[in-house]
Structure formats: C-alpha cells, structure tokens
C-alpha cells in the first residue's frame, strides 16, 4: 500500500514544480513599456475583427457522443483481458457476445453515416 504515498507525493510535486518554474519570470524586472504587446495576435491586424468566444458548429459532436460509449466499452474489456486464461471459454463466449454487440453498433453507426464528414 506504500505506493499510494508515492503517488500522493508525485502528484503534489508535479503540480508544484511548474509553479516554481513560473517564479523565475518574476526575477526579470524588464517590463515592456507599451500596452500593444498584450494585443491578441491576428495576422498583423492590431484590433481583432470579432470576438473569439462565439459559438460555431463542430461537425463531429456526434462522434464525440459515440466515443464516450465506445471508450467505456473498452474499459469493460480490460478486466476480462487480464483474466482471460482463468475465465477460459466461458469468458471468451461472454466477451465475444459483448463485442458482437459493439461491432453491430459500429456497423449501425457506419450505415447512419454518422462518421461521414464534408
């Protein structure tokens, strides 16, 4: 159980060290004299044309929903994969049924053209 301690220590260190790296920039007293350096970059145009926080249509939102489904299904397969020798044919039959449903879903998704773009 000691590894929980190690994990805790590395999580704390890994978050703290980047903040320490930040501090180095505080050592430098050179501040730019103009405010223009803080402008948003847009191909040389000094004032941006429009705000960047407007909504726009991402065409693959459906893929994102399907992704959540399939990612969880992959996670279900890991416990079986590790114990595949002990579970033997019983496990194979069960998991192949599960994967059959997964593949059927995938074929259905292909047919509904959810994975077609442009």
């Amino acid at each position, binding site marked *: 159980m000691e*590894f929980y301690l190690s*994990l805790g220590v590395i999580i704390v260190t890994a978050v703290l060290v980047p903040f320490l790296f930040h501090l180095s920039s505080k050592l430098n007293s050179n501040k730019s004299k103009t405010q223009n350096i*803080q402008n948003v970059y847009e191909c040389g145009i000094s004032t941006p044309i429009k705000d960047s926080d407007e909504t726009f249509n991402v065409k693959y939102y459906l893929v994102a929903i399907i992704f959540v489904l399939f990612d969880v299904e992959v996670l279900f397969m890991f416990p079986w994969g590790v114990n595949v020798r002990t579970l033997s044919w019983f496990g194979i039959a069960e998991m192949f049924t599960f994967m059959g449903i997964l593949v059927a879903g995938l074929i259905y998704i292909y047919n509904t053209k959810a994975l077609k773009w*442009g």
Partner: protein
Amino acid sequence: MDAYLIETVIKIVVILLLFSALAGFGTYFERKVLAFMQRRLGPMNVGPYGVLQIAADGIKLFTKEDLIPQGVVPAIFKIAPVITVATAFMAAAAIPFMPEFTAFGYTVKPIIADINVGILYVIGVMGVGLYGPLLGGMASANKFALISTARAAAVFISYEVVTGLSLLAPLMMVGSLSLIDINNFQAGGFTHWMIWSQPIAFVLFLIAAFAETGRTPFHLIANDHELIDGFGTEYSGMRWGLFFIGEYANMFFISWVIALVFLGGFGDGSVLGALALFLKVSFFFFFFLWTRAAWPDVRPDQLMMLCWKILMPIAVVNIVITGIVMMF
C-alpha cells in the same frame, strides 16, 4: 517508512529534473535531426556544434516577461500549462525506467509507484494531459487557439479507443497490467518480444502514440502552417516553455511504454538489458523526429476516418484472433 519516503522524494526530484533537462536536449536533437534530413547544419553558432543552444533557449524562456494577453480568462490561462506538465510527470510514476540495481548496498527500484494497474494509469493520466491544450486554447481570446481547441477534441475522440483496444491484446497474453510484469513476461530474450506475437497491436499502438503526443502526422493541434502555434499562440515565456516540456516529456514516456510493452524492455534486468532499453527508447524518440521530417500532416477528418473506420475494426479483429489462439 521514513527511508521509503526519502527514497521516493529523491527519485521524483531526479526524474523531474532529468526529464525537464532532457526536454531541452530533445529540442536540440530535433533541430539537428530535421536539419540533417534537409541537408542543413542546424544550430551551429552557440558553443561547439551548437550544443549550448539548449542553455541559451533555457535562459531565454526562464527570464522572459510574464505576459497575460488581453481578453483571456486569467485563472484558466495560467493553470493550463501546469496541467500539461503535471500530468506528463505524473504518468512517469508507474514507468520502470531501469531494472533494479544495488548502489552502496541499497537496492533501488527505479519506479516511483509500483502500482498493479501501471499501464492503465499511464494511459489514463496522459489522456488527462489533453486538458492542457484544450483549456489553454479556450481561455485565450484568439481564433487560431479556438480552432486548435476544436481539433484537440477531434484528436482525442479518435485515438483514445484505438489506444485501449491495441493495448488489450498484449495484456491478454501477459495477464497483468503492471509494466514490470509485462517486461518480465518478455525476459526470455529477442524471440520472446511482444512485437513478434502482436505485430498488429504494435503498429496500432505506435500510430496511437503519435496521436497521443500530437506529433507530426497528427500534429493538427498546433499545425504551424495553418494555425500558427494553435493553443500556444497567446502563450510566451515560461508558460509556453511548460507546454514544451510537457510535450517532450510525454514523447519520452510514451517511447518508454512502447519499448517496455512491445520490444522486451530491459529484458532480464542486467546492465546490458538496461543499455538496450535506453537504445530502444532513443530509437523511438528518433522515430518521432524522423516521421516529422518525412510525412505531411493529415486533416482532422482524415484522422477520424483512419481511427474509426480502419484502425478500430483492425484492433477488434486482433483481439478476437488473440483470444481464440490463446484458448488452444
């Protein structure tokens, strides 16, 4: 308990410093390799063969002014690079960097936390690392960064399923998720390497690793000629440097995972095995750079098509075949 804690802290400090420095060396190496592949010399002026370019770049990054540009969401803007670096180094916790060795009569295990779900932890934490570009791009008021963020999501939803499925087949053969167990499974020598019994899984995982680290065929997030620097456009100084360290540390760690899972790792744990592991890791790091010199980028829809319509069915078939073959 105290001794264990001190040992852990020393190991963490060594790994953090070593890989932050290696990230700097990685950039020098990348510039040299790309230059030689394009018949140039690369950095030559700072120090012998330009080696001190690393130090010069480091000093520049560390002493640059800390800029918060207009229109950003400051809290998220500041936290995003930290997420990238922190998750990259957290992922290192479950990777055995070397075989066990004895120094001054004290046995050192060069792994920070020997957890029994090692590889799941590494892949999971590396997946969280994508929140860095995602949040950084959305927090900055830049249109290139916004497009980059949308692409980051596209990359993530494409490769993650393939990563899981391609790793499952080797894990079925080993029967354990610990990277040390996976390594010991292949300890018998060259012919016992996982790449011979799982060549398809190796290729699939290698492709997924390129997407995971955002390297060139799938460098859509910060595609220089389309998106300037993508999510990093508004970042400068050490904040940008943190993204950089995170990216290169990730490249090293994923090279370690590939070498451990598919190419036999450190074998039986001898000195020769450790040296072989370093060679394998170096080769994969070089392979990342080589691909960058040789291949153009794909489009986001091509990446999604590749992952969902080609790689994923192949990975499922690979698991089915592995399962059936293992039963006999």
